[in-house]
């Protein structure tokens, strides 16, 4: 395909910036890179509206930012060992939240879209969530053949966790599934697998 061609379903991420027009804020971050994104957010300002930060320490790659974060946001920080726990707390928060709550997330694509799916359940579109991709470019992959979602795809081709087919990782992305499409790479010519390269470190 020609240069400049962009698959419009592929999400474009930004950096976390406070939304001035708000009623309240909630910030969800994952791992050390997410912790740093939250730190950077509070470098911008401390918002006047009620604010919560949910910090899932894992996956911690290099650095645990619990202590600096707790200095910067002493009364608003909730810490969790895993993203699963922070998502449970997020849902509890959403169930009693009012319109005007601004949602911010920084983490892997898997985490970003877990947050988006949870918000969707409470009637908030992903387009209204401020999203920053940090830490890893690893892609969640939906196998179009057996419907299994495999995580941690770092390469252009990845074996499906469900059916074992070698899947070509496309740019076509489903927000509802939170995953890229994976299509059997050697369907036309069985056994002919192109070289596998790491392109989503």
């Amino acid at each position, binding site marked *: 395909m020609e240069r400049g061609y962009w698959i419009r379903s592929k999400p474009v991420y930004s950096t976390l910036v406070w*939304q001035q*027009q*708000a*009623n*309240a804020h909630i910030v969800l971050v994952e791992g050390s890179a997410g912790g740093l994104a939250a730190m950077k957010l509070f470098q911008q300002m401390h918002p006047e509206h009620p604010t919560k930060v949910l910090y899932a320490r894992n996956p911690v790659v290099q650095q645990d930012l619990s202590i600096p974060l707790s200095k910067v946001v002493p009364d608003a920080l909730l810490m969790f060992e895993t993203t699963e726990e922070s998502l449970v707390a997020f849902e509890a928060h*959403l169930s009693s*939240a*009012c*319109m*005007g*709550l*601004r949602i911010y997330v920084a983490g892997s694509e898997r985490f970003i879209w877990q947050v988006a799916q949870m918000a969707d359940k*409470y*009637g*908030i*579109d992903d*387009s*209204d969530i401020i999203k920053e991709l940090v830490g890893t470019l690893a892609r969640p992959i939906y196998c179009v053949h057996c419907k299994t979602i495999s995580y941690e795809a770092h390469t252009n081709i990845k074996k499906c966790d469900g059916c074992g087919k070698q899947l070509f990782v496309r740019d076509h992305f489903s927000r509802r599934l939170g995953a890229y499409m994976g299509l059997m790479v050697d369907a036309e010519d069985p056994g002919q697998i192109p070289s596998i390269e790491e392109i989503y470190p």
Partner: protein
Amino acid sequence: MSTFKVVVSNIQQITPLIKQFSFIREDGASLPPFSGGSHVVVAMNINGRLHRNPYSLMGSPQAPDTYHIAVRLQEHSRGGSAYLHHEVKVGSQLEITYPNNLFALDKRARKHLLVAGGIGITPFMSQIEDLIRTKANYELHYAYRSQDHAAFTSTLKEKCDERIRVYVESEGLSIDLKALLSKQPLGTHVYVCGPNAMVVALIETARSLGWPENHIHSEQFLAPPSGEPFKVKLAKSNIEVHVPAEMSMLEAIEAAGVDAPYSCRGGACGRCELEVIRTDGVLVHQDHYLSEADKAAGKKIMPCVSRAKCHSLEINL
């Protein structure tokens, strides 16, 4: 535009200024069902000139045997509301378009907050039917000037029960928008229809509280404002059309026998958009459709409500 002929089957005086008109199909066929918030455009031949005004459909959208619209007599009527109030009788024939919806409920909303001012209650008259039938979570807040303007209040109180709140300005009641919009559960959508000042105030309050744009819905039909006369050159048809002060550009183009696209005729839907080739003056944008950037760029115009302050305007039609 697909249209069909209707006959006025009933007229009711709702308030001193508001009349309700009921229509059945002239050919006896059943009327199409519609979705809550839909409107029809009513065509009226007034002294040889065709007027087309949009009116919200009221009542049950599911299997309507009759269409209902409510018309407020406008103080500075260009003819439409005065004609309906004074000339149209039971048995009169009119032509209407198929229903069209520019003010649809968002079916994914967890709660619907409806805010009406005065005659702006009309689109909600069908929306609440859909909301009640689907057992949706909703509230209706209805403000009007005085009991003289209290259209449909008793019907609504009966239908909506504890879900309606009424604010009568002459009794010192008004809607505290900030308080109302601050405490709505996540996933609420707000819908407003009423006087311009109310619509603008609600949209601004919701935005300042951090409501996403997609959760804020409004409907306002504009009557084509009069202005100074000007000339429109139609590039493709290669003719020049005079737009008199009291006629809209769209009406003038139609009167000249040129087929131009249109739908709502109230500056809301975007269907009649035309490309501006050049002008020796300025465009006077009056619609709710074009973005501020589009309006500033001056390459597009909605001829149903907008005009130009110029000697001559050339468009690609």
